[in-house]
């Protein structure tokens, strides 16, 4: 006998998704992020339409005789920068860098944080002590000072930026996940699994991981804008993505010199950065609210941001 309709339960995830779908702020920020993704994807298309590759310098049409950038107009829609490059095309390419760094770095941070947090919470004892101290140390490190030193040592680049951001972000996640794991460890379903002969891997990844999943997703969403900001900071200080590759951060850094005469250099990348990070933050908050309805005691709100 073949079942015609499969009875599939609406689990916590579906419920959260449905709550999210009714949240206007979440929809708005999701659309903003979607637009950013589309802009990132269509960057080469924009370059083709405008005829301005992102690193091409237009000394004649894009710069005044004393190097003053040209404002928004028919030729350069969002103006040019101090080297006569098209700001619009560079913002589009910068979106790629920002999203890539944001997603990869926070993904990495959340992955490391979740694994370390679960391991510390599950194993307890000396493992917990060592991992907890490690997290304390990482959290107390001065990010900028060390980032500057490391970037200077290794040389700036996309990879090192991602590594630095992930390295300085994972401990926040780890600490929260550890606290949750410690409480989950005492739950009867964990004992039930142990009674069945389950190994550490089963308990950590099958029993515990889904339980911290909500926290992990909320943190991932909130870490993305933080990571984009980190990358912008690093690039701003000349230690992120090396020029001439555009990133919002190094565009803003370049803009600092020209703000008196070229407001568009500050406004457009700044708006892109603020808009996208704000959208991710709003989405993160909404995801947290959706995953954390009052009656569900198993998810605790993220205490840190």
């Amino acid at each position, binding site marked *: 006998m073949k079942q015609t309709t499969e009875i599939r339960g609406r689990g916590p995830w579906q419920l959260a998704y449905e709550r999210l779908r009714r949240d206007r702020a979440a929809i708005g920020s999701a659309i903003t992020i979607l637009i950013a993704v589309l802009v990132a994807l269509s960057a080469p298309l924009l370059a083709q339409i405008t005829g301005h590759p992102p690193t091409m310098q237009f000394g004649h049409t894009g710069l005044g005789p*004393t190097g003053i950038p040209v404002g928004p107009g028919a030729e350069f829609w969002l103006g040019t920068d101090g080297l006569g490059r098209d700001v619009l095309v560079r913002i589009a390419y910068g979106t790629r860098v920002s999203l890539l760094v944001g997603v990869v770095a926070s993904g990495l941070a959340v992955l490391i944080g979740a694994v370390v947090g679960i391991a510390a919470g599950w194993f307890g004892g000396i493992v917990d002590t060592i991992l907890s101290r490690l997290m304390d140390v990482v959290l107390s490190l001065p990010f900028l000072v060390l980032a500057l030193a490391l970037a200077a040592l290794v040389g*700036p680049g996309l990879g090192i930026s991602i590594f630095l951001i992930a390295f300085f972000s994972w401990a926040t996640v780890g600490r929260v996940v550890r606290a949750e794991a410690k409480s989950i460890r005492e739950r009867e379903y964990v004992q039930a699994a142990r009674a069945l002969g389950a190994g550490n891997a089963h308990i950590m990844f099958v029993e515990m991981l889904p339980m911290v999943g909500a926290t992990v997703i909320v943190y991932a969403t909130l870490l993305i804008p933080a990571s984009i900001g980190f990358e912008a900071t690093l690039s701003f200080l000349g230690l992120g993505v090396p020029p001439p590759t555009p990133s919002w951060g190094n565009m803003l850094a370049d803009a600092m*010199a020209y703000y008196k005469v070229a407001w568009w250099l500050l406004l457009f990348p700044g708006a892109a950065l603020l808009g996208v990070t704000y959208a991710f933050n709003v989405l993160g908050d909404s995801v947290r609210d959706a995953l954390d309805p009052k009656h569900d005691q198993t998810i605790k709100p993220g205490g840190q941001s």
Partner: protein
Amino acid sequence: MRWPRIAATLLLTLLAALAGCTDRRITEETDDAAKPIRGGTLRLVGSSDVDHLSTTSGYLTGSLWLFRGFTRQLVSNPPSDDFDKSITLEADAAIEVPSVENGGISADALTYTFHLKPKLRWNSTPVRRVVAGDFVRAFKLFCNPVNPVGAPPYYTSTIEGLDEYCSAMLKVPGTVEGIRRFVENNEIPGVRAVDDGTLEIRLRAPAADFIYLVAMPFASAVPVEYLDYLPDSPEFRQHTLSNGPYAITRYLQNREIVLERNPAWDAASDPIRPAWVDRIQIKLGIDPALIQLQIEAGTADLGFDSSMLTVDQSSLQAIGDPRVSSFPPGEHYSGMRYLAVNQVGPNNGGALSQLKVRQALALAVDKSALVQVSGGPDVASPLNQAVMNGVSGWRPGADQYSTPDDRGDPVAARRLLTEAGFPDGIPLRFAYPVEASYAIQAQATQASLTRAGFEVTLFPFAVSDFFGRLLPNPQNAKRGEWDIALGGWLPDWVGGNNGRSVLSPLFDGRQLGNLSQNYGKYDNPITNAAIDRALSAATQEQAEAGWADATRQVTADVGIVPMLQVKSTYMRSSRLRHCVWSIMGMQCDLASVWLADAVDESSNKGDR
């Protein structure tokens, strides 16, 4: 999360931009011709402190500039907006500038005699005359083991017996007692106090530029009290003495320096320091971005250690802001930008050791684009010789590898690359310091090199890392950590016979060790010989000829790729008047400015 910090910076900058806009509407009368006013406090803001407060070792432009206030040299460059006047030495502590004509320089050009003005005073207790022995002490302390002189070869290679004196002194224990004992018991054969008012210096060989070396603040008089402290130690910095118009009354490291009038100073003995303001207050540790803003807002009068960003200056000049000044005046420049070319690196099979590849580099660079992004023709100009106009060796019409309109010649460059065996171009590691004008020039250079077939990858470095570690260490060049690097050079003094301060350190192939500034390890015996001729020339003309030969050879060899000669640009507050150029400080001379809103307190006092 970090993004709010960036947002705050943005907001701050936007606000500042708006504030700047309103401020700019206030029209300023240029009344430099009006009668100067005595009095007032000159307010300066800077990001970092002096490198040294001791004249023996202070070398940063800011330090040299500060020394104008509380030290005097035997001879000095007078501050002036007339370039030729500004580079012509005048008597300072000495009664006159020695010359063969006045008998100050012996006929064999080996002995220099300085007669000191009688009314030079230290502000010691009690007030005491500055004597020839104080200058002798300065030369003796050049090689103290704690903080030696900034540029030892200038003096060790010229003054008789100083090299030996130095070798011995560097072995002395670095203690107050050790240094004092050595200084009191050992004499430099070539430096002698004939009497309190007469100093005699003998040279190893003729050196036409020696008089300029004496004008450097390194050779300022050193009072006997300085032997009570380790050179430039924190204790020393609290006990500086002055023989200039001002004395340091407060020094808080990295925070504040205050200078006030030195009552022991005799104005009549010092024609090159009018010293209009009563007090000079320097606030340190200010964020570089804020320095500019404070000056624009009028809460500070000048920047202490920072040049203006070229882009700031070009944008302000574009709107005709009268508070912006570029130095030096006229068709002269204070610094140059060039590409150091690593000739000992292993990359691409040592391609850069081939002349044709270096020639391709020289031809490829679009120097007009660099001028454009560096503030335009008012402050920068294309450079097609290994040294800039204003350095001995530069000759009008001696340009090499120039291209039409200085736009670069990618076709010719590609052809040379092909002839050198690189038809597909070569990859290059291009290092540059992360500083606004360098960063933008590096990207403009990259664009023009790319057109000629070089695949250029940019490697940004923190400024201190770039000049402090990457370039000075020859191992980094040998390992090929960089192929080309964006360098800048400011001669220690502009004009005059200054090849020693440019061509020797940059192009002498026999000085390639640690800390050598010949970063690319260029070495050509023809050039070396020309440098030797210039250094040992008895007359200015012979020296200039030697420098010109050396420059022509380096340019032909593409020892570096010269790119730009640039001026220094500064902004001052609208109340600051008589901002005249001082070649030691490379900006407004602090002993010459006066304040439009100052109240003349001294004349009031006289009335009572």
